[in-house]
């Protein structure tokens, strides 16, 4: 993140980034949801989302992306971990061992017959943690000027 004396015009990069980011984000969401039955899952989905964000950071300057993505990524780690742990604890409330996962099929309005499982919030927790740590590490190192 060096400050050059003059600002180069990176209109190509900006334009491509605007489009590609959406594709990557959609792909990452697909990977996240596909995990149960196809290759994918929280870990890969999280890394993919993080790389989309990183691309934005690379293409634009830090300040504007911070405005566009007003997340505290460190807090995301905690939220993800809590989510994963609470998923595990919730099964204990039902009298089963820690981290027992449940699934059932529901008839949903648009999606038709859909399988809903408690593994999903657990995976969501992992997804959030992975985004959090990837961005925390890279941004912390990048912001380090000393």
């Amino acid at each position, binding site marked *: 993140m060096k400050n050059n004396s003059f600002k180069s015009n990176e209109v190509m990069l900006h334009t491509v980034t605007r489009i590609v980011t959406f594709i990557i984000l959609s792909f990452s969401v697909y990977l996240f949801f596909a995990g149960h039955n196809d290759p994918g899952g929280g870990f890969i989905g999280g890394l993919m989302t993080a790389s989309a964000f990183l691309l934005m950071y690379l293409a634009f300057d830090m300040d504007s992306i911070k405005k566009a993505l007003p997340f505290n990524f460190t807090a995301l780690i905690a939220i993800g971990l809590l989510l994963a742990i609470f998923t595990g604890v919730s099964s204990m409330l039902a009298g089963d061992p820690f981290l027992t*996962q449940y699934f059932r099929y529901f008839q949903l309005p648009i999606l038709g017959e859909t399988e809903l499982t408690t593994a999903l919030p657990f995976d969501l927790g992992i997804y959030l*943690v992975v985004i959090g740590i990837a961005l925390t590490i890279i941004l912390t190192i990048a912001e380090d000027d000393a």
Partner: protein
Amino acid sequence: MTLLHWATVSPFLLAIFIPILYKYTRSIHTGWFVLVLPLVLFGYFLSLLPITSNGGVIHETIPWVPSLGINFTVYVDGLSLLFALLITGIGTLVALYSIYYLSKKTEKLNNFYVYLLMFMGAMLGVVLSDNLIVLYVFWELTSLASSLLISYWFHREKSTYGAQKSMLITVFGGFAMLGGFSLLYVITGTFSIREIIEQADAVLASTLFLPAMLLVLLGAFTKSAQFPFHIWLPDAMEAPTPVSAYLHSATMVKAGLYLVSRLTPVFGGTPEWFWLLAGFGIITLCWGSISAVRQKDLKSILAFSTISQLGLIMCLFGLGSATLHFDPTDSTTKFYATATLAAVFHLINHATFKGSLFMTVGIIDHETGTRDIRKLGGLMAIMPVTFTVSLIGLAAMAGLPPFNGFLSKEMFFSGVVNATTLGIFNMETWGFLFPVLAWVASVFTFVYCAIMFFRTFTGEFKKENYDVHVHEAPMGMLISPVILGSLVVIFGLFPNLLTYTIIEPAVTAILGADVFGGEANIYLWHGFNPELFMTIAVVAFGTLIFMNMKKWQQTAFYLRERDPLNRVYDSSLDWLIKGSQGITRVQMTGMLRDYFAYMCVFMILLFGYTMVRYNAFAIDTVNVSVISPYMWVLTLVFIGSTLAIPFINHRITAIIVVGVIGFLLALFFVIFRAPDLALTQLLVETVTVVLFMLAFYHLPELRKEKFTPRFNLVNLFISIGVGGLVTLIALSSFALGTEAGLGTISEYFIENSKELAGGYNMVNVILVDFRGLDTLLEVLVLGIAALGVIAMIKLRMTGREDV
């Protein structure tokens, strides 16, 4: 807790209150509070005397760790009561003496009396315990208290040196003793001395007999300052004189003698016990008395004199133990048991006269400011009381009539002369040495007593030698030595006062049988016999040597004061420190690569040895799958790029090649049908390469790009070794696993992934459902790593800041 238990631990209880008493009663000397306790205890133990005199014993137990057979058992018989009376009696006198010796204005009395009481309690515990482990605990407490007392003036270098030395030597012995006790427990299955004595035959028959005996003796010899462990005692003379009088003449140094006499019924009657005790005792006797002659400091003379007298007693215990070889009830046995009788008698006598001598030396030191015999002289008229007490003490120590030392010395001579007729343990060959050495040692004893006496009290009084006004000590300081001096005379004139009440029960306890049957008589005059002529010859030769002192005073023998064995101790301690520092310096290089090499070499040796030892190498080519051509290609590229890394000169190239290896690995995952792994590997590898690049970017400007991997043959061998070994282990475990028919649990996952968890992606189902806990903790690891990065980068602390 019986009264006896309370009596044993009462000094510790009082010690707790000493600092409080010291703080709130500054106008009264703390010693007065302390004085009461040993006096009361002395009275209490005296009241037990009738019981033991009639052959009775007191045996009280309170459980401490009963599951391990460790109980706080007090056992009182003639022997322990004798020691208990010595400890409390002389303890009373020393406490009284210390009140006048130590100033309440300048000294830290709270420390002194806490240590002293701690010592007293520990010593009582040692002599009254029947349980070996409890005895050991108290034994080490005496070592600790003794070191604390020696270093009482801890700002003096010599005090701390002496304390460290005595600590190292006595704790070394004490630890060996614990080993001996443990072996005794292994043999007999009990820690109780009573029960071990009952099983003495089993101990003698055991193969562990000799190690147990040697270890126990090591403890006794170091504590009782026997040759060659005696070197700590002269250096312990840096302690305040009351301490020297109490610990290093009357009580602690006799703990070893107590242990030896206590265990005589177990080990006694064997040639090993006999020769070790008698041999080391007689060597210590001669060495100590000869070394004492050349000392110039009064306390040093007394220290070496104590060593030699302890050797004498040890020798007598050894000679007396031969009695157990015979039938104790036989009338001829009495003849040999004289040695034990003499030992016990001399033990008492030595405590009286040595205690008084230390106290008088303390008075001389206190009133003249010096203990150097080259400066002292002509004090006879100035310090008449001190002079009289010293004269009595020195005459007793030299073995002159009519003092008690004369009697015990005569009995010592009869003991060694009787022993020559033993006819067992090769005594017919070597037995003549005992009377000869004993006689020589007695001559030297006479000489140093004469030196102490004539150099201190006779001659000319030179005022310029002293910094202070020389005068007689105050009354209070003189009470204790006068009492001890009177006891010397009383025991000398009426020896049978003690014989039936204390000495005989003690001898009975040591030999395990009433040998004398109430007929042990000690007479001041026992006719013209060899012993008397030996004493006369001692006096004659001693006088002759002393008269010619001027001649041999100039020889190297007299001028070199320090014991030559100190050099062995000092240099071995030096060598130990230097050696361990050297070893540490060789292995702890501070370089990570060396430690890494150690780990790898250790791993190779450990695994390699295990594999060779159990013949676990096995290679199986039957069950391997077919390798397709593109796998060969991929593998060759993979191996090629791995081998290339050590030869790459540019770091940036190395990073890229590492990235290549990572992506090739992802390709392997694809080929081996692991899409999730491949995806993750691709993404993680990308991130890693980016982070490597970042680290590379921030390398210091200096020495940039000038990186040549150095060739090191040892490292090459180590890495080939590790690689080869891991490969062999992998091949062997595959082959052996197939051979043993170890199945896989994946069938279960394949079958149940949809049924139980509702998902087709088996990997993911395992990750979030079957083994979700692992995943949970892995993301926790990631979170901690992220927080670690933040902490390292954001918290830039300088100097000694703390979070």
